[in-house]
């Protein structure tokens, strides 16, 4: 069973994000890391491939400047190889363009299943995975919170607004998984060492036959109205009284 996992490499989220004042694109300088959200997809792929008795786990990523740090993390977890699309022309690409690029990258290797995260941490449009499925003309099950494979059929608990749906789907297919679907492993020392020699194919958009277009634009960026903080007190044993008084003022009680 061959599984392809989409892994996004993003700026470290511990430092606040910034938009470039000229282009309005997210500033992506400095080292990129594997999006936490995608570590669940990588783990899920490794588990499903092992259960199926083998097959390759391939990563696909689109990132600027030939960035591979995040890919190496996922290879260190146990993925076999990767395809990276890196091209200055793709800077500021919208989600649809990203999906076209990733779909073309996915097609370079045989796959039975494609896994992505429900949404990325930095762009969080949550549309790329299902756009990929539509381009590849395969079924998709988004918001997967539990995934099993039996007899070539995916059995997925798909989160809904009101609970979950039990969904069945034949392969090939795409699933987007929620955080918490599995517990991602930490790369072992051996994994980290072997990741360095695993193959990463680096491509440009034109090799995939993609000419990025633009049909949405950012018009302005402004600071939101600050919500100012009010009173901060330290509990001296009577904080509950202060809460009660506040609720009384608001006529909630």
């Amino acid at each position, binding site marked *: 069973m061959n599984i392809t996992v989409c892994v996004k490499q993003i700026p470290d989220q511990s430092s606040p994000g910034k*938009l470039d004042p000229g282009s309005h694109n997210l500033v992506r300088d400095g080292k990129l890391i594997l999006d936490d959200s995608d570590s669940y997809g990588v783990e899920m792929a490794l588990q499903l491939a092992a259960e199926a008795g083998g097959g390759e786990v391939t990563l696909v990523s689109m990132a600027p400047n030939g960035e591979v740090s995040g890919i190496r993390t996922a290879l260190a977890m146990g993925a076999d190889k990767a395809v990276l699309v890196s091209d200055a022309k793709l800077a500021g690409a919208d989600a649809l363009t990203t999906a076209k690029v990733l779909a073309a990258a996915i097609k370079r290797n045989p796959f039975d299943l494609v896994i992505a995260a429900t949404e990325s941490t930095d762009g969080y449009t949550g549309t790329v995975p299902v756009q990929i499925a539509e381009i590849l003309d395969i079924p998709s099950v988004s918001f997967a919170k539990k995934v099993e494979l039996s007899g070539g059929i995916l059995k997925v608990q798909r989160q809904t607004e009101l609970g979950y749906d039990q969904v*069945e789907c034949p392969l090939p297919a795409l699933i987007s998984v929620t955080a918490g679907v599995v517990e991602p492993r930490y790369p072992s020392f051996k994994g980290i060492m072997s990741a360095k020699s695993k193959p990463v194919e680096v491509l440009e958009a034109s090799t995939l036959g993609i000419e990025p277009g633009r049909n*949405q634009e950012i018009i302005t960026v402004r600071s939101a109205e600050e919500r100012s903080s009010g009173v901060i007190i330290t509990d001296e044993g009577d904080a509950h009284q202060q809460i009660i008084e506040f609720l009384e003022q608001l006529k909630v009680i």
Partner: protein
Amino acid sequence: MTLSKIWVFAESTESGITSTSLELISAASKFADHVEVFVASPEPGYSEIVGAYGATKLIQVTDVNDRLIGTVVASAMAQLLSGNTVDAIFFAMTPEGRDCAARLSVKLDVPVLTNVVNLSVDGTRLVSEHAIFGGSEIVQAGFTGSSPAIFAIRAKSFTAESRGGMPAEVVQVGVGDLGSAGKARIVEQHLEERSGPKLDEAPVVVSGGRGLGQAENYKLVEELAKLLGGAPGASRAIVDAGWVPYSYQVGQTGKTVKPNVYIACGISGATQHMVGMKGAKNIIAINKDEDAPIFSIADLGIVGDVHKIVPKLIEALQSRT
């Protein structure tokens, strides 16, 4: 009016058209003369409610069966679009809304503007607003290409207002076979039972986070919510940990709430949590770390231990009744 026609994908549950869908219909009726609503249900009564909120037409997609709604409705829309001029299509940022918008965007080769929190008219096009970096900055964006413009809109961005409109004209469409894309099937639906007011409609929301320490302690949150006539909510950390179901989650990937009072117990205030509750009129936060980001938006912040404060608060409220 500025625009001629807007389509809205409305979602429904056993209790009718969702409140988020009514918000979208209300918003659309402010911008366009013709508001046509897609719904994946044969329920005839919906023509009255969507009409009241401003829809002129109700398009019922009749052959969803056990297929995923987003995939089916995207096909219905793509089919009806040929020979139809539509300025914009509105989706909610729900699982179904995102599925549908994503599939449709590929069919039409038009990107989707997502996480929209406001819309306004600029000349003859709609301009959307997006709250980024946890809501500290607002980005305005618009489409430059040909129509339709596709917007995926966050809940509670608009108010649902009945305008007392006439029932919408009803038409029915079927989509037939969807090929490979239609092969995913729903074999069973699980509804999570909840009692008390709905999380996104309750006047008071009490949410718990990892600071509660263990699943057991969530009952403090439930008890407090009940005493205040409110609904219990949660951060993603404790949903992922399995303490409470996903339907309790407040934030970026969960519910957007705008109650009169929001009480955060042991929640740090990650940007993804704050986008879901920043709109509350009054925010009370209890956290033992005085540097927790949640305090930056709290009207009343208590630096202290939830395990000490919440039980006393519950007791004090009980003794009042």
